[in-house]
Protein backbone atom coordinates (compact mmCIF):
# COMPACT_ATOMS: atom_id res chain seq x y z
CA UNK A 1 0.00 0.00 0.00
CA UNK A 2 1.22 3.48 -0.84
CA UNK A 3 2.47 5.55 2.05
CA UNK A 4 -0.31 7.76 3.40
CA UNK A 5 0.75 11.25 4.42
CA UNK A 6 -1.04 12.78 7.42
CA UNK A 7 0.36 16.32 7.58
CA UNK A 8 3.58 18.34 7.66
CA UNK A 9 5.57 18.29 10.91
CA UNK A 10 5.22 22.08 11.11
CA UNK A 11 1.41 21.83 11.09
CA UNK A 12 1.39 20.64 14.71
CA UNK A 13 3.43 22.95 16.99
CA UNK A 14 5.01 21.51 20.12
CA UNK A 15 2.53 20.47 22.83
CA UNK A 16 -0.56 21.05 20.67
CA UNK A 17 -3.18 18.89 18.96
CA UNK A 18 -4.53 18.99 15.43
CA UNK A 19 -7.24 17.02 13.68
CA UNK A 20 -5.95 15.80 10.29
CA UNK A 21 -7.22 13.76 7.40
CA UNK A 22 -4.68 11.29 6.04
CA UNK A 23 -4.43 10.55 2.32
CA UNK A 24 -7.12 8.00 1.59
CA UNK A 25 -9.57 9.58 4.02
CA UNK A 26 -8.75 8.44 7.58
CA UNK A 27 -9.41 11.16 10.17
CA UNK A 28 -7.18 11.26 13.21
CA UNK A 29 -5.84 13.63 15.86
CA UNK A 30 -2.09 14.23 15.90
CA UNK A 31 -0.45 15.23 19.18
CA UNK A 32 3.02 16.78 19.33
CA UNK A 33 4.38 15.68 22.72
CA UNK A 34 7.67 17.50 23.17
CA UNK A 35 8.69 16.90 19.55
CA UNK A 36 7.37 13.33 19.30
CA UNK A 37 4.20 12.72 17.30
CA UNK A 38 1.31 10.43 18.23
CA UNK A 39 -1.86 9.72 16.26
CA UNK A 40 -5.18 8.53 17.64
CA UNK A 41 -8.93 8.43 17.01
CA UNK A 42 -10.47 11.88 16.36
CA UNK A 43 -13.46 11.51 18.70
CA UNK A 44 -13.79 10.72 22.40
CA UNK A 45 -14.79 7.06 22.94
CA UNK A 46 -17.35 8.32 25.48
CA UNK A 47 -19.74 10.59 23.52
CA UNK A 48 -18.01 11.26 20.18
CA UNK A 49 -16.84 14.74 21.20
CA UNK A 50 -13.96 15.99 18.96
CA UNK A 51 -10.74 15.36 20.84
CA UNK A 52 -8.94 18.19 19.02
CA UNK A 53 -11.04 20.52 21.24
CA UNK A 54 -9.58 18.83 24.33
CA UNK A 55 -6.98 20.13 26.76
CA UNK A 56 -3.40 19.01 26.16
CA UNK A 57 -0.41 19.77 28.37
CA UNK A 58 2.18 17.90 26.30
CA UNK A 59 1.62 14.57 28.03
CA UNK A 60 -2.01 14.11 29.03
CA UNK A 61 -5.03 14.74 26.82
CA UNK A 62 -8.29 15.68 28.58
CA UNK A 63 -11.65 15.68 26.77
CA UNK A 64 -13.37 18.90 27.82
CA UNK A 65 -16.83 17.33 28.01
CA UNK A 66 -16.48 14.87 30.90
CA UNK A 67 -12.77 15.11 31.72
CA UNK A 68 -11.78 11.69 30.42
CA UNK A 69 -7.98 11.60 30.17
CA UNK A 70 -5.33 9.63 28.32
CA UNK A 71 -1.58 9.37 28.07
CA UNK A 72 -1.06 10.34 24.41
CA UNK A 73 2.05 8.12 24.17
CA UNK A 74 0.23 4.88 25.00
CA UNK A 75 -3.42 5.79 24.54
CA UNK A 76 -3.93 4.34 28.04
CA UNK A 77 -6.92 5.70 29.98
CA UNK A 78 -6.23 7.74 33.14
CA UNK A 79 -8.43 9.11 35.88
CA UNK A 80 -12.10 9.02 34.94
CA UNK A 81 -11.65 7.52 31.45
CA UNK A 82 -13.23 4.11 30.96
CA UNK A 83 -11.71 3.24 27.59
CA UNK A 84 -8.36 3.61 25.82
CA UNK A 85 -7.82 5.57 22.64
CA UNK A 86 -7.28 3.76 19.38
CA UNK A 87 -3.80 4.77 18.28
CA UNK A 88 -2.45 5.21 14.77
CA UNK A 89 1.33 4.75 14.77
CA UNK A 90 3.07 7.53 12.81
CA UNK A 91 6.43 7.78 11.11
CA UNK A 92 8.36 10.96 10.27
CA UNK A 93 10.09 11.34 6.90
CA UNK A 94 11.38 14.50 5.24
CA UNK A 95 9.43 16.82 7.48
CA UNK A 96 6.10 15.00 7.05
CA UNK A 97 4.09 12.51 9.12
CA UNK A 98 2.86 9.23 7.63
CA UNK A 99 0.61 6.44 8.87
CA UNK A 100 2.83 3.52 9.89
CA UNK A 101 0.65 0.42 10.00
CA UNK A 102 -2.35 -0.40 12.17
CA UNK A 103 -2.51 -0.80 15.92
CA UNK A 104 -2.99 -4.37 17.20
CA UNK A 105 -6.05 -4.91 19.43
CA UNK A 106 -3.76 -6.85 21.76
CA UNK A 107 -1.82 -3.73 22.73
CA UNK A 108 -4.98 -1.64 23.25
CA UNK A 109 -6.84 -3.60 25.86
CA UNK A 110 -6.75 -2.94 29.57
CA UNK A 111 -4.81 -6.15 30.34
CA UNK A 112 -1.89 -5.74 27.97
CA UNK A 113 -1.52 -2.07 27.01
CA UNK A 114 1.88 -0.56 27.58
CA UNK A 115 3.62 -3.91 28.14
CA UNK A 116 7.19 -4.55 27.04
CA UNK A 117 7.15 -4.81 23.23
CA UNK A 118 8.94 -8.21 23.28
CA UNK A 119 6.21 -9.66 25.52
CA UNK A 120 3.49 -8.19 23.28
CA UNK A 121 5.20 -9.70 20.25
CA UNK A 122 5.35 -13.16 21.88
CA UNK A 123 1.67 -12.92 22.82
CA UNK A 124 0.81 -11.78 19.29
CA UNK A 125 2.52 -14.90 17.91
CA UNK A 126 0.17 -17.05 20.00
CA UNK A 127 -2.92 -15.24 18.69
CA UNK A 128 -5.13 -16.86 16.08
CA UNK A 129 -7.37 -14.46 14.23
CA UNK A 130 -11.02 -15.58 13.97
CA UNK A 131 -14.05 -14.19 12.19
CA UNK A 132 -17.51 -15.08 13.54
CA UNK A 133 -20.97 -14.45 12.15
CA UNK A 134 -23.73 -12.75 14.14
CA UNK A 135 -25.27 -15.27 16.54
CA UNK A 136 -22.17 -17.51 16.74
CA UNK A 137 -21.74 -19.16 20.16
CA UNK A 138 -18.12 -19.01 21.34
CA UNK A 139 -18.54 -21.07 24.53
CA UNK A 140 -21.16 -22.12 27.07
CA UNK A 141 -21.16 -22.76 30.83
CA UNK A 142 -19.15 -25.83 31.79
CA UNK A 143 -16.90 -25.76 28.76
CA UNK A 144 -13.19 -25.99 29.64
CA UNK A 145 -11.66 -22.52 29.61
CA UNK A 146 -8.55 -23.06 27.52
CA UNK A 147 -8.40 -19.87 25.48
CA UNK A 148 -9.12 -16.22 26.10
CA UNK A 149 -10.21 -13.71 23.47
CA UNK A 150 -9.34 -10.15 22.48
CA UNK A 151 -12.04 -8.28 20.61
CA UNK A 152 -10.94 -6.56 17.40
CA UNK A 153 -14.33 -5.57 16.01
CA UNK A 154 -17.98 -6.45 16.58
CA UNK A 155 -19.84 -7.15 19.80
CA UNK A 156 -20.01 -10.16 22.14
CA UNK A 157 -22.59 -10.65 24.91
CA UNK A 158 -22.61 -12.92 27.94
CA UNK A 159 -25.29 -14.88 29.77
CA UNK A 160 -24.39 -16.10 33.26
CA UNK A 161 -25.89 -19.44 34.31
CA UNK A 162 -27.84 -22.02 32.36
CA UNK A 163 -31.26 -22.36 30.81
CA UNK A 164 -34.13 -20.49 32.45
CA UNK A 165 -31.89 -19.11 35.18
CA UNK A 166 -29.48 -17.48 32.75
CA UNK A 167 -29.15 -13.73 33.38
CA UNK A 168 -27.51 -11.02 31.29
CA UNK A 169 -23.83 -10.79 32.18
CA UNK A 170 -22.88 -7.71 30.19
CA UNK A 171 -21.27 -7.28 26.81
CA UNK A 172 -18.02 -6.29 25.09
CA UNK A 173 -17.86 -3.80 22.27
CA UNK A 174 -14.52 -2.02 22.37
CA UNK A 175 -11.48 -2.97 20.37
CA UNK A 176 -8.92 -4.53 22.69
CA UNK A 177 -11.35 -5.78 25.35
CA UNK A 178 -10.36 -9.15 26.79
CA UNK A 179 -12.90 -11.84 27.73
CA UNK A 180 -12.85 -15.50 28.63
CA UNK A 181 -10.04 -14.61 31.05
CA UNK A 182 -10.80 -17.70 33.19
CA UNK A 183 -8.25 -19.29 30.81
CA UNK A 184 -5.57 -17.28 32.65
CA UNK A 185 -6.38 -18.92 36.00
CA UNK A 186 -4.61 -21.90 37.58
CA UNK A 187 -5.91 -25.49 37.31
CA UNK A 188 -8.56 -26.50 34.81
CA UNK A 189 -11.02 -23.61 34.87
CA UNK A 190 -14.48 -23.84 33.31
CA UNK A 191 -16.71 -21.26 31.67
CA UNK A 192 -19.40 -19.85 33.96
CA UNK A 193 -21.17 -17.92 31.21
CA UNK A 194 -22.01 -18.31 27.57
CA UNK A 195 -20.48 -15.91 25.05
CA UNK A 196 -22.29 -15.13 21.83
CA UNK A 197 -21.49 -12.73 19.00
CA UNK A 198 -24.27 -10.13 18.75
CA UNK A 199 -22.97 -9.03 15.38
CA UNK A 200 -20.26 -10.23 12.99
CA UNK A 201 -17.10 -10.07 15.11
CA UNK A 202 -13.35 -10.38 14.62
CA UNK A 203 -11.40 -11.83 17.54
CA UNK A 204 -7.93 -12.91 18.56
CA UNK A 205 -7.95 -16.32 20.27
CA UNK A 206 -4.99 -16.96 22.59
CA UNK A 207 -4.28 -20.09 24.56
CA UNK A 208 -4.25 -19.25 28.28
CA UNK A 209 -1.51 -21.64 29.40
CA UNK A 210 0.80 -20.54 26.57
CA UNK A 211 0.18 -16.89 27.46
CA UNK A 212 1.00 -17.63 31.11
CA UNK A 213 4.33 -19.15 30.00
CA UNK A 214 5.14 -15.96 28.07
CA UNK A 215 4.31 -13.88 31.16
CA UNK A 216 6.40 -16.15 33.41
CA UNK A 217 9.33 -15.44 31.08
CA UNK A 218 9.04 -11.73 31.97
CA UNK A 219 7.85 -11.63 35.59
CA UNK A 220 7.66 -7.82 35.65
CA UNK A 221 5.14 -7.83 32.79
CA UNK A 222 3.44 -10.89 34.27
CA UNK A 223 2.95 -9.06 37.56
CA UNK A 224 1.38 -6.06 35.79
CA UNK A 225 -1.03 -8.32 33.87
CA UNK A 226 -2.03 -10.25 37.01
CA UNK A 227 -2.57 -7.03 38.95
CA UNK A 228 -4.83 -5.75 36.18
CA UNK A 229 -6.64 -9.10 35.97
CA UNK A 230 -7.33 -8.93 39.72
CA UNK A 231 -8.78 -5.42 39.30
CA UNK A 232 -10.91 -6.63 36.40
CA UNK A 233 -12.31 -9.56 38.38
CA UNK A 234 -12.97 -7.31 41.38
CA UNK A 235 -14.97 -4.93 39.17
CA UNK A 236 -17.26 -7.76 38.06
CA UNK A 237 -17.58 -9.16 41.58
CA UNK A 238 -18.56 -5.73 42.87
CA UNK A 239 -21.48 -5.59 40.47
CA UNK A 240 -22.97 -9.05 40.99
CA UNK A 241 -25.40 -8.06 43.77
CA UNK A 242 -29.07 -8.94 43.91
CA UNK A 243 -30.99 -8.02 40.81
Amino acid at each position, binding site marked *: MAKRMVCRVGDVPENTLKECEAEGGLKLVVANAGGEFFGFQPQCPH*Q*DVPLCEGLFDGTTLTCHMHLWQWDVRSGAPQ*GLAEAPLQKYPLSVEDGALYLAGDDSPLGMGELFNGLDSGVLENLAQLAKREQHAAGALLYRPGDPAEDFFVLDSGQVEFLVGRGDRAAPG*GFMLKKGEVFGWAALLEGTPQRIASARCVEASALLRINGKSALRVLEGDPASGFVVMRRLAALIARYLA*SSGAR
Partner: protein
Amino acid sequence: MRIQVNARNRGFEFDARARESVLYAGLRAGIDLPYECATGTCGTCKARLVSGRLHDGWREAPGRKFVKPEQGEFLMCQCVAESDVTLQVPKFINAMDSGAPDARAGTVRSPRMLTHDVISFSVELERPCDFDAGQFMVLAAPGVAGYRGYSMVNYARGARRLSFIAKKKPGGGFSDWLFGADRNGARLEGFGPLGKATFDPSLGKNVLLIAGGSGIAGMMSILARAAEAKYFDRHQVWVFFGVRTMRDVFFLDELRAYPKADITLALSEEDPPANTPLRFERGPVHEVAKRRMAGKYQDVRAYVAGPPPAVDAAIRVLLLDAKLTTDNIRYDKYS
Protein backbone atom coordinates in the same frame (compact mmCIF):
# COMPACT_ATOMS: atom_id res chain seq x y z
CA MET B 1 -44.11 -1.71 32.08
CA ARG B 2 -41.16 -3.99 32.73
CA ILE B 3 -37.79 -2.65 31.66
CA GLN B 4 -34.64 -4.70 31.25
CA VAL B 5 -31.32 -2.91 30.99
CA ASN B 6 -28.26 -4.79 29.74
CA ALA B 7 -25.19 -2.92 30.95
CA ARG B 8 -21.56 -3.65 30.12
CA ASN B 9 -21.13 -5.65 33.30
CA ARG B 10 -24.58 -7.13 34.05
CA GLY B 11 -28.31 -6.84 33.59
CA PHE B 12 -31.04 -5.09 35.63
CA GLU B 13 -34.83 -5.30 35.62
CA PHE B 14 -37.30 -2.78 37.02
CA ASP B 15 -40.85 -1.50 36.59
CA ALA B 16 -41.86 1.90 35.21
CA ARG B 17 -44.98 3.80 36.22
CA ALA B 18 -47.34 5.21 33.62
CA ARG B 19 -45.72 8.16 31.77
CA GLU B 20 -42.52 7.72 33.78
CA SER B 21 -39.30 8.02 31.76
CA VAL B 22 -36.98 5.02 31.58
CA LEU B 23 -34.29 7.01 33.41
CA TYR B 24 -36.47 8.09 36.32
CA ALA B 25 -37.92 4.56 36.70
CA GLY B 26 -34.44 3.03 36.87
CA LEU B 27 -33.08 5.64 39.30
CA ARG B 28 -36.16 5.24 41.49
CA ALA B 29 -35.42 1.48 41.57
CA GLY B 30 -31.96 2.26 42.96
CA ILE B 31 -30.05 1.53 39.76
CA ASP B 32 -27.29 4.01 39.07
CA LEU B 33 -28.09 4.62 35.40
CA PRO B 34 -25.84 7.21 33.72
CA TYR B 35 -27.19 10.80 33.60
CA GLU B 36 -26.10 14.36 34.23
CA CYS B 37 -28.83 16.87 33.48
CA ALA B 38 -31.74 14.37 33.45
CA THR B 39 -33.65 16.90 31.32
CA GLY B 40 -32.71 16.21 27.70
CA THR B 41 -29.65 18.42 27.25
CA CYS B 42 -26.42 16.57 27.96
CA GLY B 43 -26.84 13.23 26.15
CA THR B 44 -25.25 11.25 28.99
CA CYS B 45 -28.27 8.92 29.41
CA LYS B 46 -28.00 7.61 25.86
CA ALA B 47 -29.13 3.96 25.42
CA ARG B 48 -30.01 1.60 22.57
CA LEU B 49 -33.39 -0.08 22.18
CA VAL B 50 -33.07 -3.86 21.71
CA SER B 51 -36.77 -4.79 21.78
CA GLY B 52 -40.13 -3.22 22.63
CA ARG B 53 -41.71 0.16 21.91
CA LEU B 54 -40.83 3.61 23.29
CA HIS B 55 -42.50 6.98 23.07
CA ASP B 56 -40.07 9.91 22.75
CA GLY B 57 -41.59 12.84 24.62
CA TRP B 58 -39.25 15.50 23.20
CA ARG B 59 -37.87 14.81 19.74
CA GLU B 60 -36.22 18.27 19.60
CA ALA B 61 -34.23 17.73 22.83
CA PRO B 62 -30.75 19.31 22.50
CA GLY B 63 -29.21 16.08 23.80
CA ARG B 64 -30.54 14.23 20.73
CA LYS B 65 -27.48 15.47 18.84
CA PHE B 66 -25.51 12.82 20.74
CA VAL B 67 -27.73 9.89 19.65
CA LYS B 68 -27.95 7.90 16.43
CA PRO B 69 -31.68 7.17 16.01
CA GLU B 70 -31.06 4.94 12.98
CA GLN B 71 -29.15 2.61 15.35
CA GLY B 72 -31.99 2.58 17.84
CA GLU B 73 -30.32 5.05 20.22
CA PHE B 74 -32.46 7.30 22.43
CA LEU B 75 -32.31 9.44 25.60
CA MET B 76 -33.55 7.53 28.64
CA CYS B 77 -34.64 10.77 30.34
CA GLN B 78 -37.10 11.61 27.55
CA CYS B 79 -38.48 8.21 26.55
CA VAL B 80 -41.37 6.29 28.11
CA ALA B 81 -41.89 2.54 27.58
CA GLU B 82 -45.10 1.67 25.71
CA SER B 83 -44.50 -2.07 26.09
CA ASP B 84 -42.05 -4.19 28.05
CA VAL B 85 -38.66 -3.12 26.70
CA THR B 86 -35.09 -4.38 26.65
CA LEU B 87 -32.33 -1.88 26.17
CA GLN B 88 -28.57 -1.74 26.13
CA VAL B 89 -26.48 0.86 27.96
CA PRO B 90 -22.79 0.86 27.02
CA LYS B 91 -21.58 1.65 30.56
CA PHE B 92 -20.68 -0.16 33.75
CA ILE B 93 -23.69 0.19 36.04
CA ASN B 94 -24.10 -0.75 39.68
CA ALA B 95 -26.83 -0.58 42.28
CA MET B 96 -26.82 2.61 44.39
CA ASP B 97 -25.57 2.33 47.95
CA SER B 98 -28.45 4.43 49.28
CA GLY B 99 -30.64 7.42 48.64
CA ALA B 100 -32.55 6.52 45.48
CA PRO B 101 -34.47 9.53 44.10
CA ASP B 102 -38.24 9.50 43.83
CA ALA B 103 -41.16 11.48 42.44
CA ARG B 104 -42.02 14.40 44.75
CA ALA B 105 -44.89 16.83 44.67
CA GLY B 106 -44.94 20.20 46.40
CA THR B 107 -46.28 23.72 46.56
CA VAL B 108 -44.50 26.91 45.53
CA ARG B 109 -43.89 29.30 48.46
CA SER B 110 -42.51 32.85 48.75
CA PRO B 111 -41.35 33.65 45.23
CA ARG B 112 -39.22 36.82 45.34
CA MET B 113 -37.24 38.69 42.67
CA LEU B 114 -33.54 38.88 43.62
CA THR B 115 -32.43 40.90 40.57
CA HIS B 116 -34.08 41.99 37.32
CA ASP B 117 -33.82 38.40 35.98
CA VAL B 118 -33.24 36.08 38.94
CA ILE B 119 -36.02 34.83 41.21
CA SER B 120 -35.89 32.81 44.41
CA PHE B 121 -38.67 30.46 45.48
CA SER B 122 -39.26 27.53 47.80
CA VAL B 123 -41.13 24.29 47.32
CA GLU B 124 -42.98 22.94 50.33
CA LEU B 125 -42.84 19.15 49.98
CA GLU B 126 -45.60 16.68 50.84
CA ARG B 127 -43.01 14.29 52.25
CA PRO B 128 -39.61 15.19 53.76
CA CYS B 129 -36.56 14.71 51.56
CA ASP B 130 -32.91 13.93 52.34
CA PHE B 131 -30.32 15.23 49.91
CA ASP B 132 -26.62 16.02 49.67
CA ALA B 133 -25.27 19.55 49.38
CA GLY B 134 -24.82 20.29 45.67
CA GLN B 135 -27.71 18.13 44.44
CA PHE B 136 -30.64 19.24 42.30
CA MET B 137 -34.29 18.42 41.65
CA VAL B 138 -36.06 18.43 38.32
CA LEU B 139 -39.32 20.39 38.47
CA ALA B 140 -42.33 20.48 36.16
CA ALA B 141 -45.03 23.16 36.23
CA PRO B 142 -48.71 22.49 35.56
CA GLY B 143 -49.45 22.60 31.83
CA VAL B 144 -45.77 22.98 30.87
CA ALA B 145 -44.16 20.03 29.11
CA GLY B 146 -40.94 18.61 30.52
CA TYR B 147 -38.75 18.97 33.60
CA ARG B 148 -36.07 21.56 34.37
CA GLY B 149 -33.22 21.01 36.81
CA TYR B 150 -32.62 23.39 39.75
CA SER B 151 -30.01 23.04 42.48
CA MET B 152 -31.12 23.29 46.07
CA VAL B 153 -29.89 26.49 47.76
CA ASN B 154 -30.53 25.31 51.32
CA TYR B 155 -29.31 22.26 53.18
CA ALA B 156 -31.28 20.24 55.73
CA ARG B 157 -31.81 16.63 56.61
CA GLY B 158 -35.41 15.51 56.22
CA ALA B 159 -36.11 18.83 54.50
CA ARG B 160 -39.75 19.89 54.28
CA ARG B 161 -38.89 22.94 52.25
CA LEU B 162 -36.44 23.18 49.35
CA SER B 163 -35.11 26.60 48.25
CA PHE B 164 -34.23 27.37 44.65
CA ILE B 165 -33.23 30.22 42.40
CA ALA B 166 -34.05 30.50 38.70
CA LYS B 167 -32.80 32.79 35.96
CA LYS B 168 -35.21 34.21 33.44
CA LYS B 169 -34.72 32.47 30.11
CA PRO B 170 -36.97 33.70 27.30
CA GLY B 171 -38.53 30.69 25.60
CA GLY B 172 -37.76 28.41 28.53
CA GLY B 173 -41.10 26.77 29.37
CA PHE B 174 -40.66 26.53 33.13
CA SER B 175 -38.95 29.93 33.34
CA ASP B 176 -41.77 31.64 31.38
CA TRP B 177 -44.30 30.03 33.71
CA LEU B 178 -42.41 30.99 36.86
CA PHE B 179 -41.79 34.63 35.88
CA GLY B 180 -45.15 35.03 34.11
CA ALA B 181 -47.31 35.53 37.23
CA ASP B 182 -47.29 35.22 41.03
CA ARG B 183 -46.99 31.46 41.49
CA ASN B 184 -47.27 31.41 45.27
CA GLY B 185 -49.36 28.34 46.17
CA ALA B 186 -49.01 26.64 42.76
CA ARG B 187 -48.43 22.90 42.77
CA LEU B 188 -45.30 21.42 41.16
CA GLU B 189 -44.26 17.92 40.23
CA GLY B 190 -40.64 17.03 40.92
CA PHE B 191 -38.16 14.18 40.81
CA GLY B 192 -34.97 13.88 42.80
CA PRO B 193 -32.65 14.42 44.47
CA LEU B 194 -30.20 14.08 41.59
CA GLY B 195 -26.58 14.93 40.85
CA LYS B 196 -23.15 13.76 41.88
CA ALA B 197 -21.29 17.07 42.26
CA THR B 198 -21.90 16.82 46.00
CA PHE B 199 -20.05 17.94 49.11
CA ASP B 200 -19.86 16.09 52.39
CA PRO B 201 -17.73 17.26 55.34
CA SER B 202 -16.00 13.86 55.44
CA LEU B 203 -14.12 15.12 52.36
CA GLY B 204 -11.49 16.70 54.61
CA LYS B 205 -9.97 18.95 51.94
CA ASN B 206 -9.83 22.67 51.27
CA VAL B 207 -12.77 23.62 49.09
CA LEU B 208 -12.84 25.98 46.10
CA LEU B 209 -16.27 27.05 44.84
CA ILE B 210 -16.49 28.79 41.43
CA ALA B 211 -19.94 29.87 40.28
CA GLY B 212 -21.24 31.87 37.35
CA GLY B 213 -24.70 33.46 37.74
CA SER B 214 -27.38 31.11 39.06
CA GLY B 215 -24.69 28.42 39.46
CA ILE B 216 -24.25 29.94 42.94
CA ALA B 217 -27.34 27.96 44.07
CA GLY B 218 -25.57 24.67 44.80
CA MET B 219 -22.62 26.55 46.32
CA MET B 220 -24.94 28.10 48.93
CA SER B 221 -26.04 24.59 49.90
CA ILE B 222 -22.40 23.53 50.21
CA LEU B 223 -21.65 26.58 52.40
CA ALA B 224 -24.64 25.77 54.62
CA ARG B 225 -23.51 22.16 54.95
CA ALA B 226 -19.93 23.24 55.70
CA ALA B 227 -21.05 25.76 58.34
CA GLU B 228 -23.21 23.19 60.09
CA ALA B 229 -20.19 20.86 60.35
CA LYS B 230 -17.84 23.72 61.49
CA TYR B 231 -15.81 22.87 58.37
CA PHE B 232 -14.35 26.41 58.19
CA ASP B 233 -12.45 25.82 61.45
CA ARG B 234 -10.45 22.98 59.93
CA HIS B 235 -10.25 23.78 56.21
CA GLN B 236 -10.07 26.76 53.90
CA VAL B 237 -13.08 27.51 51.75
CA TRP B 238 -12.86 29.97 48.85
CA VAL B 239 -15.90 31.25 46.95
CA PHE B 240 -15.74 33.00 43.57
CA PHE B 241 -19.10 34.26 42.33
CA GLY B 242 -19.18 35.81 38.88
CA VAL B 243 -21.87 38.02 37.32
CA ARG B 244 -21.83 40.69 34.61
CA THR B 245 -22.57 43.94 36.44
CA MET B 246 -23.58 45.28 39.86
CA ARG B 247 -27.24 45.01 38.96
CA ASP B 248 -26.80 41.22 38.51
CA VAL B 249 -25.43 40.73 42.03
CA PHE B 250 -27.54 38.89 44.62
CA PHE B 251 -27.04 36.86 47.84
CA LEU B 252 -24.62 39.46 49.30
CA ASP B 253 -26.15 39.20 52.78
CA GLU B 254 -26.39 35.42 52.52
CA LEU B 255 -22.68 35.21 51.60
CA ARG B 256 -21.69 37.61 54.40
CA ALA B 257 -23.19 35.10 56.81
CA TYR B 258 -20.03 33.04 56.24
CA PRO B 259 -17.24 35.33 57.50
CA LYS B 260 -14.76 32.45 57.70
CA ALA B 261 -15.07 31.72 53.99
CA ASP B 262 -12.84 33.70 51.63
CA ILE B 263 -15.38 35.24 49.25
CA THR B 264 -14.74 37.19 46.04
CA LEU B 265 -17.32 38.55 43.61
CA ALA B 266 -16.22 38.95 40.00
CA LEU B 267 -17.81 41.49 37.66
CA SER B 268 -17.05 40.66 34.05
CA GLU B 269 -18.43 43.82 32.40
CA GLU B 270 -17.78 46.76 34.70
CA ASP B 271 -15.42 47.98 37.38
CA PRO B 272 -16.74 47.40 40.89
CA PRO B 273 -17.66 50.48 42.96
CA ALA B 274 -15.63 51.55 45.99
CA ASN B 275 -16.62 50.42 49.50
CA THR B 276 -18.33 47.13 48.73
CA PRO B 277 -19.44 44.94 51.63
CA LEU B 278 -17.48 41.96 50.24
CA ARG B 279 -14.35 41.77 48.07
CA PHE B 280 -15.14 42.65 44.44
CA GLU B 281 -12.81 42.30 41.46
CA ARG B 282 -13.11 42.99 37.76
CA GLY B 283 -12.91 40.08 35.28
CA PRO B 284 -14.44 36.80 34.21
CA VAL B 285 -14.85 34.59 37.28
CA HIS B 286 -12.31 31.99 36.13
CA GLU B 287 -9.70 34.74 35.57
CA VAL B 288 -10.33 36.26 38.99
CA ALA B 289 -10.12 32.83 40.61
CA LYS B 290 -6.90 32.08 38.74
CA ARG B 291 -5.32 35.35 39.96
CA ARG B 292 -6.28 34.96 43.59
CA MET B 293 -5.72 31.21 43.89
CA ALA B 294 -2.20 31.05 42.41
CA GLY B 295 -0.03 28.87 44.66
CA LYS B 296 -2.90 27.78 46.93
CA TYR B 297 -4.00 24.54 45.26
CA GLN B 298 -2.58 22.06 47.76
CA ASP B 299 -5.19 19.55 48.91
CA VAL B 300 -8.06 21.30 47.11
CA ARG B 301 -11.38 19.97 45.86
CA ALA B 302 -13.07 22.34 43.39
CA TYR B 303 -16.77 22.68 42.60
CA VAL B 304 -17.83 24.57 39.47
CA ALA B 305 -21.31 25.54 38.27
CA GLY B 306 -22.78 27.99 35.84
CA PRO B 307 -23.30 28.53 32.11
CA PRO B 308 -21.37 25.94 30.04
CA PRO B 309 -18.75 28.39 28.63
CA ALA B 310 -17.95 29.66 32.14
CA VAL B 311 -17.69 26.11 33.47
CA ASP B 312 -15.41 25.06 30.60
CA ALA B 313 -13.15 28.07 31.18
CA ALA B 314 -12.90 27.32 34.90
CA ILE B 315 -12.15 23.63 34.27
CA ARG B 316 -9.35 24.66 31.93
CA VAL B 317 -7.79 26.75 34.72
CA LEU B 318 -8.22 23.95 37.26
CA LEU B 319 -6.62 21.31 35.03
CA LEU B 320 -3.85 23.22 33.28
CA ASP B 321 -2.90 25.91 35.82
CA ALA B 322 -3.94 24.41 39.13
CA LYS B 323 -3.01 20.85 38.05
CA LEU B 324 -5.91 19.42 40.03
CA THR B 325 -6.68 15.78 39.29
CA THR B 326 -10.01 15.18 37.56
CA ASP B 327 -11.52 13.46 40.62
CA ASN B 328 -11.07 16.77 42.49
CA ILE B 329 -13.07 18.78 39.95
CA ARG B 330 -16.82 18.45 40.38
CA TYR B 331 -19.00 20.43 38.07
CA ASP B 332 -22.53 21.02 36.92
CA LYS B 333 -23.08 22.72 33.56
CA TYR B 334 -26.84 22.76 33.73
CA SER B 335 -27.89 24.82 36.68
